Each structure stands twice: as structure tokens, then as C-alpha cells.
């Protein structure tokens, strides 16, 4: 996988964030135009036979998308698993705002905090799993 651009990274973080987290980060709703109202559809999820072989269709997943435009013309997009229309619109607004903001801006830092929280949850889950690491002994048959 190619390293992610900052925009890909914040979109990934927003896709995993809750609506409340995004709403808190965005604060008051900025003036905007909804170009594509939040819409739920599906994406067909593909796997590969054996993990690395021939592609096949595993099944679909619900996805919600939204496109907004700020008064300065900047467009914001949101694509995320699930069916949360409110979250889609707020995430699209953040995507638009973040594109105009410096990398150390307030919103960017807020997204970084969300990303850190997600990473911490992931680490905790990983360490809980690691606590179940096992070394089985093999007994010699007939000994």
C-alpha cells in the first residue's frame, strides 16, 4: 500500500470517528452548500483467493457519502462505512475546512487527537490479544 497523503489520513480518521466526535471538532456549522446530499449505498467488498490470488466478491457493505462546498468554492467529501447521514455531512464539511487549513491548525490538531485515540484503542485491543499468545507443547506419542 502506498503511504497515505494527509487528506487520505484525515478521511480515514473521520470514517472511524463517531458523529458526536466530528460534531464536537467542527463546532458551529459553517455556511455551505450541499452538492450531493448524504446518500447510503453499498460498496462490493473484494477479497483475494488465498489472500493474494484471484479477486472475488466477498459481499457488500453499506457506505454513506456526501459532498459539500464552502462559500470559497472548496469542496469537501465524505465516504464511510455505515448509514449515518448526519456524520457524512459533518465529515464532508471537515474535509473541506481541513484542505484550507495549515497542517498545525486547530482542526488538524483535533483530527490528530482523534487519530491518536483510535490508535490507542487499537493498541489496547492488540495487547489484549497478545495476552492470549500461546506456546503449546507437543507430547510425544507412545512415549
Amino acid at each position, binding site marked *: 500500500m502506498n503511504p497515505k497523503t494527509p487528506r*487520505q489520513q484525515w478521511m480515514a480518521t473521520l470514517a472511524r470517528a463517531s458523529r458526536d466526535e466530528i460534531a464536537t471538532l467542527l463546532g458551529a456549522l459553517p455556511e455551505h452548500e450541499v452538492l450531493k446530499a448524504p446518500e447510503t449505498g*453499498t*460498496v462490493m467488498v473484494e477479497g483475494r483467493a488465498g489472500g*493474494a490470488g484471484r479477486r472475488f466478491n466477498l459481499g457488500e457493505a*453499506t457506505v454513506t457519502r456526501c459532498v459539500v462546498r464552502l462559500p470559497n468554492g472548496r469542496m469537501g467529501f465524505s465516504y464511510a*462505512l455505515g448509514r449515518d447521514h448526519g456524520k457524512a455531512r459533518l465529515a464532508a464539511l471537515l474535509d473541506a475546512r481541513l484542505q484550507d487549513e495549515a497542517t498545525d491548525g486547530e482542526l488538524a490538531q483535533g483530527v490528530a487527537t482523534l487519530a491518536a485515540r483510535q490508535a490507542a484503542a487499537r493498541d489496547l485491543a492488540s*495487547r489484549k490479544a497478545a*495476552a492470549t*499468545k500461546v506456546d503449546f507443547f507437543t507430547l510425544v506419542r507412545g512415549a
Partner: protein
Amino acid sequence: MYVAVKGGEAAILATYDLVAEARRGDPAVPEISVAQIREQQALACARVMNEGSLYDKDLAALALKQSQGDVIEAAFLMRAYRTTLPRFGSSQPLDTATMAIRRRVSATYKDLPGGQVLGPTYDYTHRLFDFELMEEEGQSAIDSRQSELAAADDCRLPTADCLDATMPRVPDILGAEGLMETEEPPEGDPRPFDLTRDPVSFPADRDVRLQSMARGDEGFLLGLGYSVQRGFGGTHPFVGEVRVGEVAVEFVPEELGFAVDLGDVTLTECQMVNQFQGSKEVPPQFTRGYGLVFGHSERKAMSMSLVDRALKSRDFGEAADYPAQQDEFVLYHSDNVEAAGFVEHLKLPHYVDFQGELELIRRIRREREERLAQERDAMPEAAE
């Protein structure tokens, strides 16, 4: 043939009321919430997502609530809902090597790069009832556990480091030695066949078979997988690896032109390793069966991988004498929504059909009696 019937609206509407009452059960018992089903019946939700062929935990929980826990009815609700949604496109193929591992075991190697991780499993439980679960957890217990969680920081698990960020898939380890059948994309990495869009024809290619099994009935595939193990198929498998965890789904929207990470899905993957004696063209090697399913669904992933290998018989020049080796049999009968529809339609009114059959059988009997009577008349002495 089924002939449509009309009428019965009042009675049918009354069944809606009655089913709502049956679903609710004793009104003195608190109603179950969709969130409770999603969080506390997650394995049932996984089965509904697989057989409904739609990943959405909330909808799976809703489907289970609405169907009173009838998994096939719940899968049917998912399938029906799916048909109302536009398809935005297809994801990038998932990379299960990047899975955030919650469980990963191998029956072939004791010492694996990345280690064996038991994770949340019932494998080592005694299957004794835990009667403490009969007691409802009070709010005070919930509060105290939450405050405990909040108080605990990163030192809660002092001895456990995080697992490796990527763990090699076990067959790839054997593959490096050349002892394993390779799994490579065909020339040009073609788009997979989609059986929800195009009719299936036989012999079916592997992409069709895998899609069909991923949405197939767990019980049916379990039975077929078991039949293979018991000798109706003759494979001798090892679990190369079972892994469970979260994998990011990436999608490239046309208007953006770059991959957007849509979030994580929980998956179970099984790599089954089988013997193969070799042929004129291929030296003896291990062959593979593959299973990949939504959610934590090991039994399903393992069954799928057994049947996947059995269905490769033809590719290896093996006899295909048993049900699990016959793609038409497996693919046409594994879909439980279709199967339930055809089996259960038998209970709908077939009055016209049956009247026809009734008349036919009466006529045949009448003709038979007339014939017998004629024969008796022709041989009066034999009757005496």
C-alpha cells in the same frame, strides 16, 4: 406450478399484529434493543451479515430483532434491503496480511512469525453453563466496571506488548519454499464475476464459487465440509491458519481518483492446507482451500475452505465423485434464502394444482377399477 391467489387481506393484516405480539413476548419483560443485539449477540449478527451478504452490524441486529432470532429470515431481510441501495462500486481487494489480529492460530506450525494468538475463543471452555449469566447485571456493576476501565491506563496489561503490525499468512511461508500451490492473480488481475448481477454457468470459476460460498448457509457448508473429512471427498486437511481481526476497506471514488479508507470490517480468514500427490505436470505439493467471511465466524470460514479445496478437484485432475466436489450441486444448494423460498413456498395455496392432481388420480383409479372389472368378467370361472 404455482397459481396466484387473491383476497385474505384482513386475515393477513391480523397476522402482522399477531407476529408483532409474538415477537415482543411477555410485555412484563423489558424489550431488547438493537444495540444490545449488536453488542451481545455479535456472532449471530456475523452470520446474518454473511448469509445476507451485507456488512452492517446495526442492520444485522435489527434483522435479528425483527425476525425473532430466525437467522435465515434475518438474512432474507438483509438481501431485500440491499436491493434498494445503489452500488457505488467495488472496493480495492482487501489485504488480510494487514489485519489487526485479534485471534490467529495455526495447526501446522508451533512457532510462527508473529506467534499464535488464541484471542476470544470458546475452544478451551468446558461447555458448562455459567449460571451467573442468568443474573442480570445491575447498573451499579456496569458503573463500577466503567470507572475501573477509566482509571486503568496503559499499564493494565504490563506484560503484553502489541502484536506485530503485519503477520505473514501461513501458506505464504510454505510458498516461499515452493512446497505450496501458488495463489496468484490471473493475467491482468481481472474484475471478479458478480453472481448478484449475472447468471452463473457451469463449470463455475473460483471467483464465482468463493462468492457463492461466502453468502452460503453455514450449516450446509459445515455438512459438506464434514462429508469431505469423513471420506466423501478424500482430502486430508490441516488448518494452516485461522485469523480473525479488523481490515480496512478502501474504495476509489471516481470523482476523487484516490483510495479512501472507509473504515474497518471484522473478518475471519481460513487457509486450509491439503496434500496433493502430484501429476505429470505438477510435482507433489500442498494445495490450498480458502475461506473468508464477515465477522467472527470460524466454523463458516473453515467449512468454506474445505469445500473450496474439494471444488478444485477438477483443476488437479482428481475424480469428482462426491457432492462437495461438484460445483453445480454446491452452488445451487448453498444459498439458504433461495432454498428456504423454494421449500417454504410449498405451504402457500396450491389449490388449483392439487385439484388437478386429485382429479387425475381419481380418473386413474376409476380406469383401473373398470379394467379390473372387465378382466373379471372375461374370466368368470377364475373368480369362483
